[in-house]
């Protein structure tokens, strides 16, 4: 069909405009710094507890995809295959698989001080759950004994959370997180009806952080959980000190961890700088029986010693020995793990 003169006159300009728009969009994509990313860790863990050795290959991928400047969708999953002795006098191993989401959440950064999180998110209680559970970060293959207190069994919640930074200056940073969770028995999104909050004070010059957490389970038998934490990473000494105390209605406990480095500079990639010995001491106290909080049935003391090595190219080997003392029996726990951490954009570009 022939084009009218008016139409033919407009077409080149429209086409030019379209080309310029597409070009600028493409150019923006090429130079943008907010491409979606895939990160995570892949590893192999062995654990010998009370004479039984289990083997577990593990993958924990993480996806973070921004939508515009203010929205971020992020998720982390765990794929774990465990091979454990059959037991009951039978020889050989049996395998079991686990595939679970740690979180799948949408974040809306409302302003400089508040971010609204909705979906399935890590319960903000203490520090371990949100900061140290990634396999490429944690110093030990096993979490602390008090992990179950305040994290409402699953460690994740379904609902909404408001969090952010109240203020951040050269001398002090103050941040907060408060959440409300619904009960969910869904296999992938398991959560308990609960509410809680956490507040942190960080003194950057002293590199000292203190915080307090509170959680309340709002289903079945209602329970309160309280927790405090203290982290210190002195600038002049290559050591990181982390500690947490958690209290529930049937038990309480604490853990303290010191990670040493043989070189002061964090970015030092020399052979010596890769070695980091870690010592963790933890203790739990049972005040009344409760099978749901995940803590040992009797008072327990445990010392963990790890010797971790950071190889180049994001490869790390963890090896640890733990001795657990309890009235139900003392035991030795050996664990080793090799991990590779990956981090790349979802598509190639400049």
């Amino acid at each position: 069909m022939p084009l009218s003169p008016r139409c033919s006159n407009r077409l080149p300009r429209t086409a030019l405009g379209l080309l310029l728009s597409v070009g600028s969009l493409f150019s923006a994509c090429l130079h943008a710094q907010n491409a979606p990313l895939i990160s995570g860790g892949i590893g192999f863990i062995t654990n010998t507890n009370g004479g039984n050795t289990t083997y577990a290959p593990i993958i924990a991928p993480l996806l973070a995809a921004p939508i515009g400047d203010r929205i971020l969708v992020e998720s982390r999953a765990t794929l774990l295959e465990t091979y454990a002795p059959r037991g009951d006098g039978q020889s050989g191993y049996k395998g079991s698989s686990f595939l679970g989401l740690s979180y799948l959440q949408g974040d809306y950064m409302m302003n400089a001080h508040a971010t609204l999180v909705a979906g399935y998110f890590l319960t903000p209680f203490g520090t371990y759950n949100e900061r140290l559970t990634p396999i490429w970060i944690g110093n030990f293959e096993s979490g602390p004994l008090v992990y179950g207190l305040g994290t409402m069994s699953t460690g994740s919640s379904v609902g909404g959370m408001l969090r952010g930074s109240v203020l951040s200056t050269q001398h002090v940073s103050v941040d907060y997180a408060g959440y409300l969770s619904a009960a969910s028995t869904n296999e992938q999104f398991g959560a308990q009806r609960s509410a809680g909050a956490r507040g942190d004070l960080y003194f950057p010059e002293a590199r000292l952080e203190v915080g307090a957490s509170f959680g309340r389970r709002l289903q079945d038998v209602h329970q309160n959980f309280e927790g405090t934490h203290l982290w210190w990473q002195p600038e002049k000494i290559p050591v990181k000190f982390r500690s947490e105390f958690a209290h529930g209605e049937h038990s309480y406990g604490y853990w303290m961890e010191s990670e040493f480095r043989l070189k002061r500079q964090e970015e030092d990639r020399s052979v010596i700088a890769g070695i980091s010995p870690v010592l963790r001491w933890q203790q739990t106290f049972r005040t009344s029986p409760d099978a749901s909080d995940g803590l040992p049935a009797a008072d327990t003391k445990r010392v963990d010693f790890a010797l971790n090595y950071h190889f180049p190219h994001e490869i790390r080997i963890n090896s640890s020995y733990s001795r657990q003392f309890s009235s139900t029996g003392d035991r030795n726990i050996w664990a080793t793990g090799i991990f590779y951490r990956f981090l790349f954009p979802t598509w190639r570009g400049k």
Partner: protein
Amino acid sequence: MRLRTVHSVLVAIAFVLLFAAEAPAQTPDSNSKKSAQAKASQQSTTNQQNAGEQKFARNCSRCHRSPEGFSPRISSTILKHMRIRASLSEKDEQEILHFLNP
């Protein structure tokens, strides 16, 4: 035809204005002023770099070692993720981003 002429004249005027804005008259005074401005800008960038580096050292290393390297295409995404995960302030996020991508 007349419309095209008007467009051409407008485009020419736009170019002249653009050129005039980009290339002001060169005088000794304006040269020294420009040099001072460049120095100040460089100083400001360096200060921002230092602030970002300090924030990076003080915040990120609390939990993990810094990655050996990553594509600049994901630096903003990483910072958004860490803003949520580590409760970084918006200012800290921007300064660390500036340090990673000067």
